């Protein structure tokens, strides 16, 4: 890793790590027994670990100039491995949360393990840990290939990968200590938020610098989506997180927004986190890996233009569908509903474009579980956006809001779309990155596919049932005109569905464990086979450094 860095980059990385160490030390000093202090210690430790690592490789000879003729893929490799590690953590905690709703005493009477603290650990670990790392890793891969250009330097991609994971760590450990802003999907406190802004700016600049070196005149669609993801997430993150800390020694801060303005800002953020993190970024992934794996060009270039701008424009209006019938002014709710329904058009256009791309390659979908992951993802994308537009209608939302139906919708999107497209893309990239002809075991990919699909279907059906039953029970009247069921009645009715959901989640988790094993074995055999070659013997074709291959 270090040998790939130039001398200057090695020095610069030492300077950055030293600054980080000083920062961590001062946080630990002013924060003391506040969560901020513990986080200072964490930052300090991370920086010291990094320093040791860089110093240990500092005097390694520099890689020759011929490296500049190939793509720089090491950060993508590390990103993918980290993403899978987060997947294990996030899915495990998700299933634990699910079992807590079956048996609430699975907390062991410890503060850190109670539902309210580990639920955000689940959401952050899957969305930001698993999803975010996969997006960063694949975006590096895709932007270089589609621009036919190597990244401009070796240091900034590492800064992005490790800096981003430091943010994820601060977030997750913060919740366990009880440090949270309580804004859904924006829970981390002010200092972690500032750190993420720095990382994100470097990421954005790196992306633009790579694009500016491209030897393709056009910027390929996948890059538009990745760019929209990077840009809009930055805007959302900065606005929603403006807050005044209690002091520089306190982790706690108070949002500058309050009440109804805060609600609107939060759901403008929250819904567009869905749009630009969980949708736009992963569409970027889909637009590269699906056609590539299927060996077919994208069905329609024009549809991709229309749906891209449709999604970018419409989504930003839709946040208020999270606030139907609340104290938010009525006209804002109506706008949100209208745009949510219109959003169905570009969403289905994207899903359709993906599925039509598979025309002529359906035999591959049948035989290749990796491509099937991507196909199913496109189907679930279509399904969850249809469901979303439906739930955004005020009268439907009066039933679905606050119930498990929302959770069902979330996981149709999260498991069916986000996780499936990611697993598909990772299974496609791993052999390409580690120069192997294929994954270690195609049968294990197949097993993962079926476990993931079964888990998703069980999860989603359980939540649809429980959500609709819950919503109906809350609003049912008996003949005398009073409410028919107490809240506890509805709670008891949920019990069997909560068990089913937790079992579905377990299947999904087992699938991911198998996936990790398979990826690990692929990497290991890659390393072994490289060593086993006799000196001087030419590398097999697939193991050559990728020449700058033509873009699609």
């Amino acid at each position, binding site marked *: 890793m270090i040998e790939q860095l130039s001398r200057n980059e090695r020095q610069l990385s030492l300077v950055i790590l030293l600054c980080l160490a000083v920062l961590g030390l001062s946080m630990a000093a002013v924060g003391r027994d506040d969560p901020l202090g513990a986080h200072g210690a964490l930052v300090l430790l991370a920086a010291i670990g990094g320093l040791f690592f860089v110093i240990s490789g500092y005097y390694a000879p520099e890689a020759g100039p011929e490296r500049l003729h190939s793509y720089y893929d090491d950060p993508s490799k590390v990103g993918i491995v980290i993403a899978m590690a987060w997947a294990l953590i996030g899915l495990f905690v998700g299933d634990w949360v699910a079992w807590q709703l079956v048996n609430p005493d699975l907390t062991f009477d410890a503060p850190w393990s109670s539902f309210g603290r580990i639920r955000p650990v689940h959401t952050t670990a899957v969305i930001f840990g698993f999803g975010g790392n996969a997006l960063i890793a694949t975006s590096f891969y895709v932007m270089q290939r589609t621009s036919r250009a190597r990244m401009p330097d070796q240091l900034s991609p590492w800064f992005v990968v490790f800096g981003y994971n430091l943010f994820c760590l601060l977030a997750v450990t913060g919740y366990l200590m009880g440090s949270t802003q309580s804004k859904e999907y924006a829970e981390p406190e002010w200092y972690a938020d500032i750190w993420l802004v720095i990382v994100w700016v470097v990421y954005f600049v790196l992306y633009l610098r790579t694009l500016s070196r491209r030897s393709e005149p056009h910027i390929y669609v996948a890059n*538009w989506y990745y760019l929209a993801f990077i840009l809009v997430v930055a805007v959302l993150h900065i606005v929603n997180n403006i807050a005044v800390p209690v002091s520089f020694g306190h982790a706690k801060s108070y949002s500058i927004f309050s009440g109804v303005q805060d609600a609107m800002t939060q759901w403008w953020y929250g819904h567009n986190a869905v749009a630009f993190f969980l949708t736009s970024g992963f569409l970027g992934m889909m637009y590269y890996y699906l056609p590539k794996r299927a060996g077919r060009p994208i069905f329609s270039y024009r549809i991709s233009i229309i749906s891209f701008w449709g999604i970018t424009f419409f989504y930003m209006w839709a946040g208020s569908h999270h606030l139907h019938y609340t104290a938010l002014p009525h006209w804002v709710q109506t706008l949100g509903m209208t745009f949510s329904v219109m959003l169905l058009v570009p969403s289905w256009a994207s899903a359709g474009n993906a599925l039509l791309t598979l025309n002529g390659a359906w035999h591959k979908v049948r035989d290749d579980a990796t491509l099937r992951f991507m196909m199913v993802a496109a189907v679930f994308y279509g399904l969850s956006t249809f469901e979303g537009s439906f739930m955004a209608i005020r009268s439907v939302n009066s039933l679905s809001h606050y119930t498990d139906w929302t959770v069902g919708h979330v996981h149709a999107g999260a498991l069916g779309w986000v996780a499936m497209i990611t697993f598909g893309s990772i299974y496609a990239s791993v052999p390409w990155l580690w120069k192997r002809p294929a994954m270690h075991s195609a049968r294990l990919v197949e097993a993962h596919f079926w476990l993931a699909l079964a888990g998703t279907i069980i999860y989603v059906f359980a939540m649809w049932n429980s959500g609709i039953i819950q919503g109906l029970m809350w609003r049912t009247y008996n003949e005398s005109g009073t409410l028919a069921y107490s809240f506890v009645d509805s709670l008891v009715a949920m019990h069997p569905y909560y068990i089913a959901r937790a079992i579905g989640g377990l299947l999904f988790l087992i699938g991911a464990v198998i996936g990790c094993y398979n990826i690990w074995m692929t990497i290991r055999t890659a390393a072994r086979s490289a060593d086993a070659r006799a000196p001087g013997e030419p590398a097999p074709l697939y193991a050559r450094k990728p020449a700058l291959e033509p873009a699609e």
Partner: protein
Amino acid sequence: MNVFGFHYRLERKAIGLVLAIIGVASIGGIVEIAPLFTIHQTVEEAPDMRVYTPLELAGRNIYIREGCYACHSQMIRTLRDEVERYGPYSLAVESKYDHPMLWGSKRTGPDLARLGGKYSDEWHVAHLNNPRDVVPQSVMPAYGWLGRTDLQAADLGAHLKAMRAVGVPYTDDMIANAATDAYGQAAPDTPFAEGVTKRYGEATNVRVFDGAPGRLTEMDALVAYLQILGRLTAAAQKPLAAAKE
């Protein structure tokens, strides 16, 4: 097809693409959010609205810390069944001093917007210590450590100050006495109790919330907060109760 021709040129310029994305994406947010800051049309008047006492604010922070909002909403919608189940629907003004708001998005447990005064302090303490002692079917976690942990009250002044910085009208007097007011609100027989009613009004609850006098615990703070939910202003209690639908 000029549109596509235009796009064909646009996608050759990274900066053009970046600016176009920002421009197109900004419109929705600006149109929907900016007008909400013309407060007078968004939020009703409620002259009787009071701010949280330091103890209640500390309780609110514990509510946030423990993630109670993940299972409980604090927003009664304008639907008949909700109004009958939980009480008059929530008004915007009621969360005027909530930085951030805790409306919630999921009701694994019931809505808490009008919880204040519904149960006794003893009920809350027993329920938080182990919900299943009170409601056998409950899936709410037990929060046994709250009653065993002393409340950190020393820095509450700094908290009020930060709240003032974001627009909540705390006075210098309130900020200077924050720590003693927190103590006094849970210790009615001490000289500190008087200052609380002087600064926050006669109607403020001053009593031993956790049933264990002499010690200021996190349980005191959380129960004090739960007992004030929906009671900072009487605006919603006016005969608005007939829901729209």
